[in-house]
């Protein structure tokens, strides 16, 4: 008998003021740009100075979001820590590379190299918490966070763990943005939040963020939702996506009509948003459609923001106007599906239910 998987708490540091969990996208941070930085919480409230001095930004953001998630779940420790990150603490990796080149491999110091290990966030949370349990880091572009969810689900369903801290984190770093702008992955010209999704231009607006959640196989006082199913596909042909989604729902004994809403990964890249718009005008035509990347920016673990959004909707029963893509209203959210892909690769489906 497989156990249920509950999302028992959330924690977020993002381009929006999401670290304050009492708020729900009430005070929106707008922009006219091609890159977005997180709204920094007061890191000193979360991290002792002696610990903070060597921390990369990704670790700092994650210290805040993971501690907020742990606090809300009322836990001091967990059975496992699983983190997804496309690029790890990339800022330090890039500084280490530039130091190698500039100093001709001389006088290099270890801190930046240590922070460059992709698993440095998961490792430092474990070190801080004294968590000796399962510790994994997934680094597969836009399904890094979903891989982490999948791993947690496997363990919780099989009752190999009771509480698991799951997160996704990525940093926005200059060299990475510059080079990806060269190859058309980042928008050339600034665009406003209001216009980005209908910009009709190539590339995305790059953001950053860290999202952590406690997943448990026991319901808690703060339970947000239930994770029912996940699908991960390295590739999907454009014409087959609708079939894959209906097949995924059918495997869960559901049809599109059973969904109260879909949360889609539109990022305003004219070359790839058709993956979503095709669905919006076909199988999801009558489904309330929600979007979030105009608020979060695009990054490998941006779906952490989407997952946060879905859970906030379940908890509050409210859908902020700013995330609505069509005029269909969600009256009582019971079941939400998240669908995301990046540049036609690494597609994911995540099904959440109210409980």
């Amino acid at each position, binding site marked *: 008998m497989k156990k249920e998987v509950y999302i028992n708490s959330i924690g977020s540091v993002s381009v929006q003021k999401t670290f304050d969990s009492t708020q729900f996208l009430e005070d929106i941070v707008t922009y006219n740009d091609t890159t977005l930085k997180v709204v920094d919480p007061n890191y000193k409230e979360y991290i002792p100075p002696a610990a903070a001095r060597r921390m990369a930004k990704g670790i700092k953001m994650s210290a805040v979001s993971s501690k907020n998630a742990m606090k809300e779940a009322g836990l001091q420790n967990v059975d496992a820590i699983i983190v997804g990150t496309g690029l790890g603490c990339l800022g330090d990796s890039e500084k280490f590379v530039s130091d190698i080149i500039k100093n001709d491999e001389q006088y290099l110091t270890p801190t930046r190299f240590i922070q460059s290990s992709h698993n440095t966030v998961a490792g430092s949370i474990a070190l801080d918490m004294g968590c000796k349990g*399962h510790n994994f880091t997934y680094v597969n572009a836009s399904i890094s966070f979903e891989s982490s969810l999948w791993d947690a689900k496997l363990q919780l369903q099989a009752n190999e763990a009771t509480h698991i801290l799951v997160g996704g984190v990525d940093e926005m770093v200059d060299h990475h943005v510059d080079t990806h702008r060269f190859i058309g992955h980042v928008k050339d010209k600034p665009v406003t939040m209001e216009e980005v999704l209908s910009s009709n231009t190539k590339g995305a607006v790059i953001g950053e963020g860290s999202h952590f959640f406690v997943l448990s196989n026991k319901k808690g006082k703060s339970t947000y939702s239930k994770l029912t199913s996940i699908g991960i596909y390295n590739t999907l042909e454009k014409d087959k996506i609708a079939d894959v989604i209906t097949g995924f729902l059918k495997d869960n004994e559901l049809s599109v009509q059973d969904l109260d809403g879909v949360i889609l990964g539109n990022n305003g890249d004219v070359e790839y948003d058709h993956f979503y718009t095709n669905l919006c005008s076909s199988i999801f035509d009558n489904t309330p459609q929600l979007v979030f990347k105009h608020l979060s920016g695009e990054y490998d673990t941006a779906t952490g923001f989407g997952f946060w959004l879905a859970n906030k909707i379940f908890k509050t029963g409210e859908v902020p106007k700013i995330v609505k893509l069509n005029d269909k209203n969600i009256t009582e959210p019971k079941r939400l599906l998240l669908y995301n892909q990046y540049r036609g690769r690494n597609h994911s489906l995540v099904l959440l239910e109210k409980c």
Partner: protein
Amino acid sequence: MNRGIAITGMGLISSIGNNVEENLTSLTSNKTGISRITQINTVHKNDIMVGEISQTNDMLEKQLGLAPNSYSRTPLLGIIAAKEAISQAGIDNIKDCRTGLISGTTVGGMDKAEQYFYDYYESDEHWNHINGLHAGDSTQKIADAIGLAESFVTTISTACSSSANAIMLGARMIKAGELDRVIVGGSDCLSKFTINGFKTLMILSDTYNTPFDEHRKGLNLGEAAAFLVLESDEIVSRENKKVLAYVKGYGNANDAFHQTASSENGDGAVLAMEKAFKVAGLKPSDIDYINAHGTATPNNDLSEGRSLLRIFDNNVPEFSSTKAFTGHTLAAAGSVEAIYSVLAIQNNIIYPNIGFKTPMSEFDLVPETALKHKEINTVLSNSFGFGGNCSTLIFTKEA
């Protein structure tokens, strides 16, 4: 209840061989792959020794029918190893069941990123490598090369235990019925990034590495790719497959002690081994051979040695580290040594821990120093990494 997951194919390229067979030949003839570095122009070339694969990128690309400078070395090595594994498993159609790919890497496309870091600003000549900095990009290239589409494909990066964890996740996925077949392993190439990184930690030896020796001076970095094919019992019986060995147990724990160093008594390692025994339904006395992590750093070998003494209650079975042959191949080490473990089972042999002379002063642990023939049914393999990551795998002859 504790049935193992069948291994039906293996593929491996390292500094001691371009395929599984060549690796076995080197292991059984004391042939080390450690040498001076030739393919990376580093200022440290006279201060370090490495386990370098002799084939250049051009040669690897030619072998794979790719244009010169198409890919980072990490996916090139990965594709070669994954293809060998698939071929050995006798898979004609990779889409005939739910097949996944789980790869471990730490370096990813860093070899190209460090080469063209500033060139990208000057010319578009090497822009094909820009997206290769994503660790997952190497996995995607391997997936494409083996024809895997619409599939579960992911990447694990837990430093030097990455591919051990890939094997663990693959076994769990099959056990849970989420996949019928999964190709698991890892790939890491040498790079200035890792050479200089380990140099800053002052744990690189300037000569041949000597695991578990009192006078060990640190590790030699290596490069390798190694993949295994795991298949469900249904697929094995449906296709009447030959099973090479089984993934019987696995355990992952965190030392939660230090960012890069292992705890003095190997707490995380003990926990990982305990978990693996529990999953396998075996006890320490069932182990016929231990393929140790044994990097030859002062810290690892002391910590791991102590953890072995704790787990095996001072009765440690025959053990050796094969890193004196290959160097430390980082993310690939776990799957390289998983294949060596399976070869030990298939051939009933224990590999020598070459370079060992003097036992460590802290305890009385002596690894095997010569090739030994013995009935091997059960092998335990350890892999540890930065961030406190500790992983143990147990392989068996019978399910």
